């Protein structure tokens, strides 16, 4: 476990972030988009945890931060879903690319 260098964790986080970003930018289904955003946030969490354990100056704050992030992420997605429901009632679709009432 100690053998694993910091950079590996960071790389993992970065990759995860990029995957999330990719998903968020390309998927048609809004649910999946929201999930991808979750991925991005979790990438952040990995970073934070890594640093709090094996950063330059390890400290507990990172983990606290992570907890906050998790909480907030949950709230965010909850709200997202709620809005999506409302939208679904009127629009009968969860496809993000069909949300183009507002443009130009």
């Amino acid at each position, binding site marked *: 476990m100690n053998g694993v260098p910091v950079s590996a964790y960071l790389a993992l986080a970065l990759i995860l972030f990029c995957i999330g970003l990719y998903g968020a930018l390309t998927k048609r289904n809004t649910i999946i988009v929201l999930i991808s955003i979750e991925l991005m946030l979790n990438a952040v969490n990995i970073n934070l945890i890594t640093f709090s354990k094996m950063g330059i100056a390890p400290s507990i704050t990172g983990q606290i*931060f992570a907890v906050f992030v998790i909480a907030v992420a949950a709230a*965010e997605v909850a709200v997202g879903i709620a809005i999506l429901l409302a939208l679904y009632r009127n629009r009968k679709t969860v496809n993000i690319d069909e949300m183009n009432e507002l443009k130009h």
Partner: protein
Amino acid sequence: MDLEKLLSFDWGLMAPEFIILIATVLLTLLDLFLPKKVNRRILGWIAFASVLVAIAALGGLLGEQVGSILHDTFRLDSFAKAFKLLLLVGSALVLLLAIDYQPKEGLNEYRGEFYYLFLTGLLGTMIMSSSGDLITLFVGLELLSISSYILAGLRKKNLKSNESAMKYVINGSISTAITLFGMSYLYGITGSTNLKAMAGTLTTLNDPQYIYLLGLSFFMIFVGLSFKLASVPFHMWAPDVYEGAPTPVTAFLSVVSKIAGFVILIRVMVSIYSAIPMEDGTTPMLFGLQDFIGFLAAVTMIVGNLVALRQRNIKRLFAYSSIAHAGYLLVAFTAMSYVMFDSIWFYMLAYVFMNLGAFAIIQLVTTKVGSEDIAHFAGLYRRAPILAVTMAVFILSLAGIPGTAGFIGKLNIFLGALMVSPSHYVLASIMIATSVISYFYYFGIMTQMFFRPRAEEGKLKVPAATTAVLIICAAATILFGVMPQLAFDFLQSNFNQFLDFMG
């Protein structure tokens, strides 16, 4: 930690926040338990009152020395005070607008929600403005974001409203993620989330590797936050969301949440990145990266003003104009001159009044007809001359014509951009040129109001609260345009040039 330790903190510093918090809780409960038939407007007045009380409380704190509690996570320095003041004043005005807001299908049962969500959002902005720690800062930010997501989608039955909310959520979350990712690196390198502590460790830093990482974090945070400012590159959500959201919410987004965005931007950037030495060891990173910010500012101004030329929908038009104004403010931020704080503060002050005033009239004219086409302003001068003239005042101020607060604000920003050396001639020129371009669309509205035959028949009756807003805004816009020294003196006497920002 035990109770007396808890009590030993000087909670008085958080008085305004507490007031808003209490009001929020109160409203929630009231909204829950009040019988359905009671008009929820009353809640609005309560909220308004609470904001006024908060302002009063803040006024009481003005004299206070800089103080921080909860281990420097919450600091009340003059910077925080000054901008909290703006936030509170802005919110108060927006609340007045909201009280008179009557969309076609009505808000009926959600009206209650509106007020307490609004207050939580406000609370978020206040916490942001006086947070001394990345975590509080982030929490405040999210508090604002999440409440405003819901606010944007408040008109559940209205497709546009839903859609704008959805777009807002998605873009918002992504921006949050990016910001956080940047912050995570900051934390990683400093091992702390307390701004002061971070700054302390960073000053001693000189490993180019880290510096690059910090640069990375810098850009991530900046881009992430540019979502809140609605500035390039994260500006494109603004027009759609502004158009779809209920008008008071649009007003809130374009004024309060924008100010909050700047507050947090300055907080983070200035306190952290001005501490980091670039590889040459002398110039702080913030100054090293000035050109990038300047570039973004320029693009923001250009995009905002050019695209606005095409808009027929008044709310979209103001969305773009607000983008442009974000650009102007960024110019001041780029310059980092002695007068940066003054100029940004004053410009925001002016912006609060002129923009909210404009939105008041927009709400007045558009909500009744249910469409936001600019054509509805045609012949407003015939329908309601005084209203038209008031609108003209706001527009002139937005366009930066002398005699109005907007002009002095711009002047101040120019001065900042030119008094530093090397002077930002290009940036200043772009700013000035784009504001001339902005004449096209601002005076387009004038043309509609004054030159064209009247579109709608029937008189416009102006509700009390809106009247109040209009009077306050118009008066302030002109007063600060003619007698700006009032504002400046206030600034000088109470905030002492924000010297305690770093301390």
